[in-house]
């Protein structure tokens, strides 16, 4: 098969980029694979890309930032999408041209707005697979409305968790569209696993409020009080940096908690630690949890929607603690800090259990799904030939009506506010 991925920006750092690169290079073993990057802002990607995977940028911001068309808001890319501000008439046009002339058998969109492009603009003969790396429940009603209209024209939609796939099946009516959970994969580590001896807890991700690094730092104060020779290393950059620095100072943790900056790839950093940590309020998947486990670290995570509970088996290969509960987080970390044997045992379990996220099994599933989408498209029939049960139709219609109502109410409110100005 010839497979094209449509990606927001292959030159940045983030879970979607990592997982797309991983999947692309695994598929490149047996297929022709390219990544189309809508945006480009630097010469080389942060992550190395397998030379067998070609990379094709559409808009180079280093030259085209001031392009007249780039200064006008996008029309095809939905206005309700989070990244609408980074899209424009220029991206509308380039993505449209790219899809119109694409010689792939199947194109894979990697975010809602790009899935919409794919649904509306891919040629008839090209199979269309949308990927949801966030979650349906976290989208605004307006975005859900936009997706509900467009996604029917996809052949398949993948989510990263079973929980989100269930939400799509229940709340969106997508007749004929195969909805399936396809977890992110993490390649086999190139370094030996951590041995559990280092007195280092490692966390990684963008420094944004939803990741709750503030909670993690506060909970780590409990660890430092009892074990002052342990440190917490937080990798990543973002808007929370200065606030977190302030918190570290305020709590007097500057000898134990370190903001390490962004590092990619993280593997060499994970193996320096012996416990991974994630304190998010919300985690569509939890890529860093899998990365840490694949390096032999047990992970203490909040049991937030949706990813962590589908990755960690509480008490076996890590710990799940209630969302926003500083004391529970601190206690779970302390339990692993105090008990060397428990930490090592859970680390070994993490290494073993996380093998299900190795590219092998995940890629096999992706390959099967892509092949089915391609042959269904060629035969002119839907991939999913389920009979829509009356109940399901009614439920999803109910959700559609609710989103429409919320969106309309929002519009009305805006009109009222505008009137009051």
């Amino acid at each position, binding site marked *: *098969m*010839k497979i094209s991925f449509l990606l927001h920006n292959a030159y940045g750092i983030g879970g979607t980029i990592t997982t797309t690169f991983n999947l692309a290079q695994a598929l490149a073993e*047996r*297929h*022709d694979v*390219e990544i189309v990057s809508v945006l480009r802002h630097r010469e*080389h990607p942060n992550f*190395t*890309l397998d*030379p*067998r995977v*070609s*990379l*094709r*940028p559409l808009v180079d911001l280093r030259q085209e930032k001031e392009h007249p068309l780039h200064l006008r808001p996008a029309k095809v890319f939905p206005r309700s999408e989070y990244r609408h501000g980074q899209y424009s008439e220029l991206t509308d046009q380039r993505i449209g041209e790219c899809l119109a002339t694409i*010689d792939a058998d199947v194109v894979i969109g990697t975010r809602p707005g790009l899935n919409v492009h794919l649904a509306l603009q891919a040629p008839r003969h090209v199979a269309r697979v949308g990927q949801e790396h966030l979650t349906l429940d976290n989208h605004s009603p307006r975005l859900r409305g936009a997706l509900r209209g467009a996604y029917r024209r996809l052949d398949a939609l993948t989510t990263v968790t079973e929980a989100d796939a269930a939400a799509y099946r229940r709340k969106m009516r997508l007749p004929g569209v195969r909805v399936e959970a396809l977890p992110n994969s993490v390649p086999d580590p*190139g*370094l*030996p696993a*951590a041995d559990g001896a*280092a*007195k*280092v807890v490692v966390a990684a991700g963008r420094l944004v409020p939803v990741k709750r690094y503030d909670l993690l730092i506060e909970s780590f104060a409990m660890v430092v009080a009892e074990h*002052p020779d342990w440190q917490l290393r937080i990798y990543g950059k973002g808007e929370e940096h200065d606030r977190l*620095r302030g918190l570290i*100072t305020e709590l007097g943790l*500057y*000898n134990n908690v*370190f*903001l*390490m*900056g962004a590092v990619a790839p993280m*593997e*060499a950093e994970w*193996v*320096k630690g012996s416990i991974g940590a994630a304190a998010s309020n919300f985690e569509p998947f939890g890529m860093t949890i899998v990365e840490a486990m694949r390096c032999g670290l047990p992970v203490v995570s909040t049991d937030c929607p949706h990813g962590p509970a589908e990755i960690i088996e509480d008490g076996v290969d890590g710990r799940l603690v209630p969302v926003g509960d500083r004391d529970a987080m601190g206690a779970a970390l302390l339990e692993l800090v105090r008990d060397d044997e428990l930490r090592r045992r859970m680390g070994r379990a993490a290494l073993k259990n996380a093998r299900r996220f190795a590219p092998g099994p995940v890629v096999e599933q992706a390959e099967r799904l892509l092949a089915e989408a391609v042959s269904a498209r060629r035969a002119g029939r839907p991939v999913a030939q389920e009979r829509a049960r009356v109940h399901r139709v009614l439920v999803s219609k109910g959700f559609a009506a609710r989103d429409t109502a919320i969106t309309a109410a929002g519009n009305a409110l805006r009109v009222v506010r505008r009137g009051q100005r």
Partner: protein
Amino acid sequence: MKGTEGTTVGTEPEARPRVGCAVDTDGRITFDVPSGSAEAGQLLLRLRPKKGQPEKTLHVLELEPTGDGGRRAVLDIRPVLAEGRWDVFLLQDPESRRLRLLPGPRDVRVLVDGHLRDRQSPLAVRIPYVTKDGHLAIRAWRRTAHAEAAGIEVTDRSMTVGARLHGASLREGAVVRLRRRGGDGAVHTFEARAGDDDRSFSFTVDYEKLTTGTSAGSGIWDAFVHPAPEASPIRMARLLDDVADRKAVFVYPTVTVSDALVHPYYTVDNDLSVKVTKAG
């Protein structure tokens, strides 16, 4: 299934191989050049010269084939590398151009608790790291003796630093001196309090000393320990872990004392200094 006429545009100029490296507890570094990368016989380490200066110090390492088709070079404990940043190149043959290397997997985990191992004189430290522009390099320190700073406790008027000597031992009358960088030669002396053995000690800097009197004003104060009254000074620094560039990572609170902002920090060379900024 793979098509034969794929539009492999290949935007990556991946001629430069990614070279993995691993450090052992003695500081020996093993470089692994993967199979399939450019033919090469040697690795070249070059001490990065100051801007506009010619390069002077080079080390060449032989690459030996490994079982899996790759090649391996070992930087042994000797030579002791001169202090500075060393760039790593692949030499395709003695006449040909150098290929600067990209970092592969770096296994430097043994460095993380390096401060727990006592060192002899001269102290040699090597940390493989990735440069800002994404290349593999090594940071090296070479010191006759070394004073490794550990925790720093900051109050609203002082800082207390715990430290450990390597390649020297503490005697009666040991002191820590903070010396103002630049011309005027101002120095303040603080007692070095002995710890559990003749290597560990601590000292407290009363910030008032740096902000009032004849030496008042903005400036940077570099910290040295004199392990005995007549002993030569040893620079206080923090070198014995895996952090090649510490300045932006190990950040200590700034406090206001007598109209001046004061904070300890690690310099670009990971040495310990105190910065005083007079308000206004």
